[in-house]
């Protein structure tokens, strides 16, 4: 082994550690900017129709419940948002849902494993962005959607095919960088 290859071999672990550090920093930075979610799991339902279901309305909310048939609007993309009054990130996300609803995007809500009285109180306090609002108290329909936490938001195209799923709160960044362009693409 010549001295230069020996020096190179000695440097190799440091170079590997440095490369790892750069990659790690990049991942943390993307996480901080909300671009990358290490716990995010791709939905198994992308490219498929929504699972078959019918859910009752949240009484006194003033809007109807809905089922799979109602998700084939034919008019444009719509959002299905799973939320709960006990879910803290749902409060962070709520202003963005309100804005989408003001912009005329149909947002269909499903209250997941929530007491109807609590769901009602939540929308009375924070406003109701939902064109339709159903309740899934047992959480079984949510499992058919492959839901693993709240909030979760699904984007369906005009044929009712699921095109996008976001697990976590729709923040300003997610709205601007992901959701708005998708809404435009499927309009």
């Amino acid at each position: 082994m010549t001295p230069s290859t020996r020096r190179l071999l000695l440097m190799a672990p440091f170079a590997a550690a440095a490369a790892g550090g750069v990659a790690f920093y990049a991942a943390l930075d993307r996480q901080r900017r909300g671009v990358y979610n290490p716990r995010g799991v791709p939905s198994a339902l992308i490219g498929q129709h929504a699972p078959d279901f019918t859910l009752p309305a949240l009484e006194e909310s003033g809007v109807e419940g809905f089922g799979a048939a109602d998700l084939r609007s034919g008019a444009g993309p719509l959002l299905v948002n799973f939320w709960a009054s006990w879910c803290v990130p749902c409060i962070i996300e709520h202003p963005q849902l309100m804005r989408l609803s003001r912009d005329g995007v149909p947002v269909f809500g499903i209250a997941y494993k929530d007491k109807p009285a609590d769901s009602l109180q939540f929308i009375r306090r924070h406003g109701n962005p939902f064109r339709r609002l159903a309740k899934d108290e047992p959480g079984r329909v949510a499992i058919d959607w492959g839901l693993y936490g709240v909030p979760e938001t699904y984007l369906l195209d005009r044929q009712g095919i699921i095109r996008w799923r976001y697990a976590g709160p729709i923040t300003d960044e997610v709205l601007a960088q992901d959701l708005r362009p998708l809404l435009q693409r499927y309009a």
Partner: protein
Amino acid sequence: MRKFLLAFALLLPFAAEAIIAPRVAYATTNPADMLRDPAQEERARALGREIRCMVCQNQSIEDSEVALARDLRLIVRERIVAGDSDAQVRDFLHARYGDFVLLRPPFTWSTAALWLTPVVALMFGAGLILLSRRRAAQPAPPAPLTEEEKRRLAALDAETRDGNRA
């Protein structure tokens, strides 16, 4: 002695698993959720140990206390009572949650790296060991002369040549 230590180090994880695994596997199922038929309950547990809890992500649904894990445990039991085979139960969950829900994911292009990395790493290590052994068997070639040595050698050469001539 060295061989013995190496074998011990290699077998340690298996031994540890044999000691620890049975204790944690039965930790969470609520007795009220258990199936009456012990054979069916055993099938449900075996299946549940292969299903990932999507919330905690590093535990099986049998090991997790999370509400969603309990819902999935109940679904596994419902499907078993309804007469589903193990494969049908797995397919039911796979259709909803994708490859990630299976703690033993199927071998596909996207999981190839996951399955093959240990094999590749093992072969790389074996290669390194073989290479170093072969090198140890051959005597190392002497190190090339340094500039200083070359100069001294040349000087000695010149000296002897001069001496012979004299």
